[in-house]
């Protein structure tokens, strides 16, 4: 590994070439004026900024080709700021490039490594000082110090304990119970089978008990999608078929992959598609995954109707909804 085969020796820095402004006083003057004009443009930009802030109404719009209808206030402020900043920037760079010295300077570089003598002296003094502290000898002190520092280090971790509750079984539970009515979202109206035409989709939530309030945490587990097909279109086993009602089938709307809302339904193919990662579920086959990264079908909610003819859940979900987790069985 050497450079001995290099055909030529380093010719050294090329001769300095003067710029026009270095030799021609007219060019120098012109460069100076250009810099001044750029700084002047910057000042104009700030004036535009101040004017926009004070005098352009925040609700006024202008039509700009390509951009369309644009808020004049924000546009004025932004353009003013941009002009002000760019003027200073281009002015300074132009100044440096045309008028300041462009002679390259050579500085020496030294190896990062310290001199051997310095290194040796350093080691000697560290050893000396360690000797003074008796670190090598007093192992009892060393060990107890290690123990106490280690223990103190644990306390802040302990303090984080109240960041959250223990999960417990909460991930397996939803608000769906036997007989819980399905209500529209939004609107909270109970649904009769006749409300849903063949081919229709609806998002539903469990009916609230009086005085109960629905949180986003509830929706994140309870959201259910209803799809109505013709009964003969299903390819389900007897149990799953008994979970449908007159062609209406209900799935958890929370994707079994990463928990997005499975919101896209394609009527012709009867596929549900999650817009986040394109997992595709076949409604006719109990939301079997037919494409994409999801590994499990969407959980199916068993439904029927109550005495008044409204759709209700036959039973809670028989598995956890949403994305997988370690303890999920």
């Amino acid at each position, binding site marked *: 590994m050497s450079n001995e085969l290099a055909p030529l020796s380093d010719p050294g820095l090329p001769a300095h070439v003067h710029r026009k402004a270095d030799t021609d006083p007219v060019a120098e003057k012109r460069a100076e004026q250009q810099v001044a004009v750029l700084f002047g443009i910057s000042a104009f930009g700030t004036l535009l900024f101040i004017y926009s802030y004070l005098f352009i109404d*925040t609700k006024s719009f202008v039509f700009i080709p390509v951009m369309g209808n644009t808020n004049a206030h924000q546009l004025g402020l*932004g353009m003013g700021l941009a002009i002000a900043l760019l003027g200073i920037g281009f002015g300074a760079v132009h100044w440096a490039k045309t008028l300041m010295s462009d002679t390259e300077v050579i500085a020496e570089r030294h190896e990062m490594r310290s001199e051997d003598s310095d290194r040796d002296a350093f080691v000697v003094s560290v050893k000396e000082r360690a000797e003074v502290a008796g670190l090598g000898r007093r192992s009892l002190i060393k060990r107890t110090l290690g123990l106490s520092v280690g223990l103190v280090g644990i306390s802040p971790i302990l303090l984080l304990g109240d960041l959250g509750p223990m*999960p417990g079984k909460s991930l397996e539970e939803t608000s769906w119970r036997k007989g819980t009515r399905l209500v529209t979202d939004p609107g909270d109206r109970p649904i009769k089978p006749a409300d849903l035409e063949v081919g229709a989709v609806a998002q539903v939530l469990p009916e609230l008990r009086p005085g109960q309030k629905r949180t986003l945490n509830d929706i994140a587990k309870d959201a259910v999608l209803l799809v109505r097909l013709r009964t003969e279109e299903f390819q389900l086993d007897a149990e799953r078929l008994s979970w449908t009602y007159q062609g209406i089938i209900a799935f958890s709307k929370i994707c079994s992959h*990463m928990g997005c809302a499975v919101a896209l339904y394609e009527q012709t193919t009867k596929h549900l598609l999650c817009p986040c990662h394109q997992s595709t579920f076949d409604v006719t086959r109990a939301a079997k995954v037919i494409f994409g990264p999801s590994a499990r079908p969407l959980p199916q909610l068993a439904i029927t109707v109550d005495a008044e003819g409204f759709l209700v859940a036959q039973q809670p979900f028989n598995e956890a909804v949403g994305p*997988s987790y*370690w303890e999920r069985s």
Partner: protein
Amino acid sequence: MSARERVTGTVANYVDERTGSAKWLKKNLNKVFPDHWSFMLGEIALYSFVILLLSGTFLTFWFDPSMEHVVYKGSYQPLKDVEMSAAYASALNISFDVRGGLLMRQIHHWAALIFMASIVVHLLRVFFTGAFRKPREFNWILGIGLLTLGIVEGFLGYSLPDDLLSGTGVRIAHAIIQAIPVVGTYLSFFAFGGAFPSEIFIPRIYVVHILLIPGIMLALITVHLMLVWYQKHTQYPGPGRTEKNVVGYPLMPVYMAKAGGFFFIVFGVTALLGATASINPLWLYGPYTPGQVTAGSQPDWYMGWLDGLVRMAPPWETYAFGYTVSWNILLPGLILPGIIFTGMALYPFIESWITGDKREHHILDRPRNVPNRTALGAMSLTFMIVALINGGNDLLATHFDLSINQIMWGTRIGIIVLPPLAFVITKRICLSLQRADRELVLHGRETGRLVMLPHGEFVEVHEELTPEKKWLLTQHEQAAPIELELVDQAGVRNPKSFRAKLQARFSAANAEAVAKPTAQELKQLENEHH
């Protein structure tokens, strides 16, 4: 002495008597910085960070990081009387009812994109020119740390407004945390203060976004720059430039003016983008609710590759002993990124192990002269680009009327096939460029001028290169591979360890090159001509 000089002198004297800074400043005002456009990439990152601090501070004056439910009463009519979180309502308030608020929000978001983009391009420059070699390995690792923090910081930033798009992103991040074996469920409950989405997550990530991560980044950037200063900047090869010197312009005034001016240019361009190019129009998305999603949900570009990997992952999950392992999430969401980032951080050490080169390097490589490294870079980049393309597969499908399933299968196969292909092609291109350099040095530049000789032969006139150019094309070192000694000096067979064999193997592949012209060859050619 003029009055101004007297005042300056008094102030300078006051400061110097208390800090002794004159000596340090005198030395460092002459600090030499080499000049090259590619050295401005890191500068753009630095300046964007400053812009982010300034615009971010402005936004904190009005942003309310609370998930408390409020009814929107602001001036944006389509969402009037809609129930939403206070965070989203205050983001709308900044966009519509604070003068200059929308501009600042857009500047902040654009600056974040530019920040990440400039970090990535800066990283590529450092990688392809070998600037990470000794003594700059620490700075390489600091850079990887900053890149990682930047990705997290950006993600938290666009999660804050609590709109439908950002909430969807948080939902996905939550699923990744939850998928971690054994502790995932607990980690997610601790991070979110309960189940998703909880009412405390936004306030928590707010303090991480505006204080914790920026603080750490500021510290890392400071060390990063101090090391650049202390170790002196690398320089491109050229006449007069050696491993023992730095050729460039002094800090004062040239570099100060250029760098200072460049800060204003970067800020100005960001302001121009903020003024004219709409970004993250969160009022169109509506407030977050877990039961809804917008079609075409996309993360910011620096997260896009991760989302692309997640999308293309095979649907693998294993269930054993009552426990679930979601490979479809872990593999693309944690394991692959972990391997990629660890590999990046370790690369300087891997390369120095392969080449056996433990010397300092301050002259940058021309990428063609290090074909394996360049090919590896092209390979990694291809991997990332295929992943990024798949991150936008839904938009590609709708915009170009393609089948999403075909795009997905294309990228699934492409991510395995294309990177090795990129490696091979890039390596061949590098070697061809080396051959072209050799031709140039030996035979000069083709002028395109045809001359007919007296006996009727046509020849093209070649123009000899200048000595400077010849030096540039031949100054690099061509390392010989590390040889594996199978028999030691005493003639005893030396059973080399697996590691040594591996090293020799890599080293041999690494040393593949087109021999650069030697002095003898040039001499010989000259003799033939005269």
